[in-house]
């Protein structure tokens, strides 16, 4: 092996270690008992591994007044993520399709305005959105949070699908027009089935984004629908009694599990979809 190769591997290995270290500490700590943690050997493997902290984090940890763990937050997040993934993707695909193939008058202006939305910080829009949703009498509900995710997902999703459709031959659309397809039929029967790689990418991006969101969930979802991230924050910031580091670690891993699993299961698709958008054919 050449020295350059050895250097390369040494660098890659240390970089990997650097990024794996926090995960290692989280996993080992979550498997330890509180007594063992107090001994202070942060890097040591657990002497008597136990899943007690995980069970507790899932169903017993206290979030403010109630002590039900992050379980409730998990199901809330699922209820938020499912519609907040499907609806924005369908609408984004529809937007991209209309912009690419039907080219309505002023399409480019509309698209530019939509893209501008991607550059405005979320925080700026929170207050106006709160007032708008309150006026619509949906503030603090599942509808509100899904609507907010729909709005914030639109610029990037439209961009993704517009570019993907622009990479398909325009003749495909023309052939479908001659076959008598209208706006909706061409979308459902020809374009949407042809965009599976992009749908997968968009789904991964949207699920991850929605699942990891904290601020929007906190502000718009309301107390009963608080997503897992909000519950996790409550578990960790509960100040009464002892800080249960093992439970906190387990709760954090549980919360991060869904996006992690999605990346592991779909890595191949993800790359394929990104490439499909970038290269023609």
């Amino acid at each position, binding site marked *: 092996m050449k020295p350059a190769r050895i250097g390369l591997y040494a660098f890659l290995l240390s970089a990997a270690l650097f990024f794996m270290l926090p995960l290692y500490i989280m996993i080992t700590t979550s498997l330890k008992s509180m007594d063992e943690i107090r001994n202070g050997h942060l890097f040591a493997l657990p002497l008597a591994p136990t899943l007690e902290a995980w069970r507790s984090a899932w169903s017993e940890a206290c979030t403010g007044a109630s002590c039900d763990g992050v379980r409730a937050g998990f199901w809330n997040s699922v209820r938020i993520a499912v519609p907040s993934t499907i609806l924005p993707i369908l609408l984004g695909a529809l937007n991209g399709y209309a912009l690419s193939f039907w080219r309505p008058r002023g399409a480019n202006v509309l698209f530019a305005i939509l893209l501008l939305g991607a550059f405005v910080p979320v925080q700026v829009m929170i207050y106006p959105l709160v007032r708008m949703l309150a006026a619509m009498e949906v503030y603090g509900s599942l509808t509100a949070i899904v609507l907010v995710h729909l709005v914030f997902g639109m610029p990037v999703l439209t961009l993704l699908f517009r570019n993907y459709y622009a990479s398909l*031959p325009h*003749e*495909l659309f*023309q*052939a*479908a*027009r*001659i*076959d*008598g*397809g209208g706006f909706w*039929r061409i979308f459902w*029967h*020809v374009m949407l*089935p*042809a965009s*599976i790689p992009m749908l997968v990418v968009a789904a991964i991006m949207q699920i991850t984004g929605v699942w990891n969101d904290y601020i929007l969930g906190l502000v718009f979802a309301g107390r009963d629908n608080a997503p897992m991230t909000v519950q996790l924050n409550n578990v960790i910031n509960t100040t009464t009694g002892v800080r249960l580091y093992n439970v906190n670690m387990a709760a954090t891993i549980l919360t991060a599990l869904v996006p992690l699993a999605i990346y592991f299961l779909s890595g191949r698709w993800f790359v394929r979809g990104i490439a499909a958008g970038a290269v023609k054919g």
Partner: protein
Amino acid sequence: MSNVDLRKLSITLGGNAVIRELDLQVKEGEFLVLLGPSGCGKSTLLHSIAGLIETSGGSIEIGGKDMSRIDPSERGIGMVFQSYALYPTMTVEKNMSFGLRIAGMPKAQIAERLERVAGMLHLKELLKRKPAQLSGGQRQRVAIGRALVRNANVYLFDEPLSNLDAKLRTDLRRELKLLHQNLGSTMIYVTHDQVEAMTLASRIVVMKAGEIQQVGTPSEVYERPANLFVAGFLGAPSMNFIHGELDALGRFNAGALSVGMSAAGPRKAVLGVRPEHIALMDDGPLLGKVSLAEPMGSHQVVWLDCGGHQLSCIVQEARSFAVGDQVAFAIDARRACLFDPDSGKAL
């Protein structure tokens, strides 16, 4: 089967007038080829007949009905595209029947049409496959099949063979010609390939910069080109052009080169001679020096230098030439053309 009648058709794309007041009549059952270099507006014209591009003036009549404002699906046309444009997620069967299903045709009738067209194009074994599992030639046959099942009055082809390799292209070209002979339908075919145009067409329309240069049968267009552009565009190697003078006695003179023509001057003129109408013969009246010989297998193309004029000629016999060889030749004046050097029009 229908005729197509274009009257004073104008098309404007992005503010540019691509086609201006174009008139063209396509007869029933005719195989009309639109031929021209890329950007000459031939594809735009075809797309406007299909209804995929809006026209800005004039009318498009198909079978006597004005179709200028009618939806593409209701114009009674079938179209084949260069990129095949097959629906990637549908099987061959579904691809071909998509339009019929949209039109709400009964299943039995769809099956009957599929059966007939699949048989005609040898697609029966491929019906259950997806486009990705087909070769280029098979894909284009499916695309042709998809147009045929529509039982259209007019079939439109937009450079359908351009994406295929040379061998497949000749095979499919022959199939297309046979198809037209059997069906007798009206077909309008766009290509920039003069061989396709010559072999397939009943009539050729040569276009340049959105304007029709000449309309005629392949032999008319080839033998009697209307102007310098048409003369130079058709034929490979292309026609030899010699600038010179036509005198009062009907002799065309350009330096060492002199040919007796039937037209008389005096005037400036351009002589156009096809390479196959220059014959090497020992007692030929003209002399030239060989500057290059290109063997083509069945024949060879020999380039002659005749007093500064470069002439290509086609030699059928297997004879070898060395650069600098002095040869005598004759120009077949009856088949040569004369053009006006200013307007480019045939005299």
